């Protein structure tokens, strides 16, 4: 039987914006295919052993929680970096996406140092960027459209060599300015999109599952599932941005 170990980082702290939806999407879509996916909650102060982690999930948190988490994670930066270079999968949403970068400046102009795993930085300020979002995502060829909801005060800027997760079709993206959304480095995906993102973009869930399987040299073929409800939710999310799903090149 195929196995995936998902480490859920600080579920008691980083749990804003329906992150549980992302966990449930990974869990059920593995379960429906007979893959044994185990979710291991990691609390602050615990010594995580990244050697047994295939997929690390990090959710969103508010400023006060994020500071706490940043301090705790600093002690494990080197191991995390090593795992990332070896191909461990990370899916980080919102607050923890910011945390993967060099630093995050809060609205109160407090600078929280990040992990510096990927080349980006974030500054809070100005209007909150809120709303339904569509991005054209090049994890697939041809690219696919992802539909989510963003809600963030931080504006993130990517280093010149870092790939975004997608190009904004509708919404704000990383900073409301350069049309990029999220970031991809090796098997690390960071994004502002929630809603939750994975349940109604099941192909992204499957992408993460496949990468996690391949990381441990397991067969990464996944059976087709009946995604009728998911696709309807996806289409209705697209309509909310004023676009028509049939007029976009979806697949």
């Amino acid at each position, binding site marked *: 039987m195929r196995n995936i170990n998902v480490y859920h980082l600080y579920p008691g702290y980083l749990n*804003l914006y329906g992150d549980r939806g992302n966990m449930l999407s990974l869990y059920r879509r593995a379960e429906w295919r007979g893959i044994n996916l185990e979710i291991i909650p990691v609390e602050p102060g615990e010594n995580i052993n990244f050697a047994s982690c295939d997929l690390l999930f990090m959710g969103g948190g508010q400023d006060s929680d994020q500071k706490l988490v940043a301090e705790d994670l600093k002690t494990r930066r080197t191991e995390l970096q090593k795992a990332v270079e070896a191909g461990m999968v990370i899916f980080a949403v919102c607050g923890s996406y910011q945390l993967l970068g060099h630093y995050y400046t809060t609205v109160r102009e407090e600078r929280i140092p990040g992990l510096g795993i990927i080349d980006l930085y974030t500054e809070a300020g100005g209007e909150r960027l809120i709303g339904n979002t569509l991005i054209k995502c090049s994890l697939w060829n041809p690219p696919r459209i992802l539909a989510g909801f963003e809600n963030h005060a931080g504006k993130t800027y990517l280093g010149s060599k870092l790939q975004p997760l997608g190009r904004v079709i509708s919404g704000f993206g990383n900073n409301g300015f350069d049309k990029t959304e999220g970031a991809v480095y090796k098997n690390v995906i960071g994004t502002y999109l929630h809603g939750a993102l994975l349940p109604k973009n099941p192909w992204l869930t499957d992408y993460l599952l496949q990468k996690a399987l391949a990381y441990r040299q397991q067969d990464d073929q996944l059976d087709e599932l009946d995604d009728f409800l998911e696709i309807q939710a996806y289409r209705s999310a697209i309509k909310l941005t004023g676009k028509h799903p049939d007029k976009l090149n979806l697949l």
Partner: protein
Amino acid sequence: MREEKRQGVAKKAAAPKHINRNLRTLLSIWVGKTIMSLTRIFGQGGTTLPGRIALKINPQVSAVLSSQLDAGSLIITGTNGKTTTTALINGILKEAGLKCIHNQSGSNLAWGVASTLIESSSWWGRLHQNCAVLEVDEGSFPEVVRNIKPRGIIATNIFRDQLDRFGEIDHIQNSIKKGIENLLENSFKVINADDPSLAGINPANGKNILYYGLELDLPAYPFQNTGRDIKVCPLCSHILTYDKIYFAHLGHYRCEACKYKRPLPAVKLTDCQNDHKNNTTLEISTSDQALKLITPLMGTYNLYNILAAIACALELEIPSKTIIKSLDKAIPSFGRMEPFEYDNKKIVMALIKNPVGTNEVLRTVLTHQDGKVTILIAINDNIADGTDISWLWDADFEQLHNHPDRLDNVIVSGSRAWDMAVRLKYSGLEAGKILVEEEPQHAINKSLEHTDPGGRIFILPNYTAMLELRRELNRMGMGNPYWNREEIL
């Protein structure tokens, strides 16, 4: 006798007799009232537009009107329990012989308050009531307090709710603090001691605070996987230690780093027993008296609502007999476990709008009675609901999946019906049991079709979905439209 009671309550001061009803105020009232009549003719319970326009004409209109109230105004804010607490306080004040203004339909932004006051006033800007009991949204709280200068405020709790409008919890906390600091010096503050983020607000004007809280040995809350919204000390950000948790982050907490801890409540619930008829007997004690009362309201969240109302009434020096008499006959508020009946089928409507409230509603629905139920969940994403519906994933809809024998089908409706359907599928419910009907009337029809005579339907909508579904139920001859609904208490 009545007169006597009233004097205790209305001791505020003589009413200011020189009402500043200048032309701008009158114009703003006239325009507000005119729009109100027009929107009603077209069958909408307009609570937003009239106040919005009236405030444009005269931003002081709420201040001018409310200054006439001889017993003053009370403002209730917080994430959960505003509507029920407001209704309970309103009921107690009526029992004490006062005439109250009350924003019943949950229209609780600054313009909703203006609409309510304008509606109550004469065309010449006169109010004939003694007091106003108003629920006010956390975001509008500082502004409404600054305008209305209430005699007292009640802060119920802070949970994650409508993130798109407020941002995060830190922000809501700041807003409530700002509102409290906008109060007049001698105004009283009734605050939930069990909520660390509220009790830790520590406003600059820290006098006249009355805390309330639970002192019970309740069984542990079985659905803990939502995580608590507030886990760190509001003063030093260290992780809080809990000796008791009643639900989510409400309980007996202390910080081991800075020694901050739950303030001792002056009004506390010391015992709570359910009988088999779904009535709850409560024992409440204060520094100088003990109250015992029976209530039909269900759920832990209602214990807090009742306690908040009692604390406020005691602060107003209302005799405990009057309080008990009023609470004994309290019935659920608008859309909060509100009952209807159709074709020998019982329908109960319960608003859901955030994870903690939803968990409590589901728990109440699934544990209070046995037998099959049909459930209709309706989720819209209009501005008044919050356009960010990601909270659906944080609520424990798994509870439905854990009671497979209780339900055959779940009907989902509203503009985000498909998101809700996906949520239920991933909770473990079979996809075939989830029926999607985006239109409210179709959803109601389908629910009735799937319910046997004598059976029960629970309708769980978020805010605007509730308004739509209610309108539909009204059209079918159930209940009254909220603008001419009989006062409920």
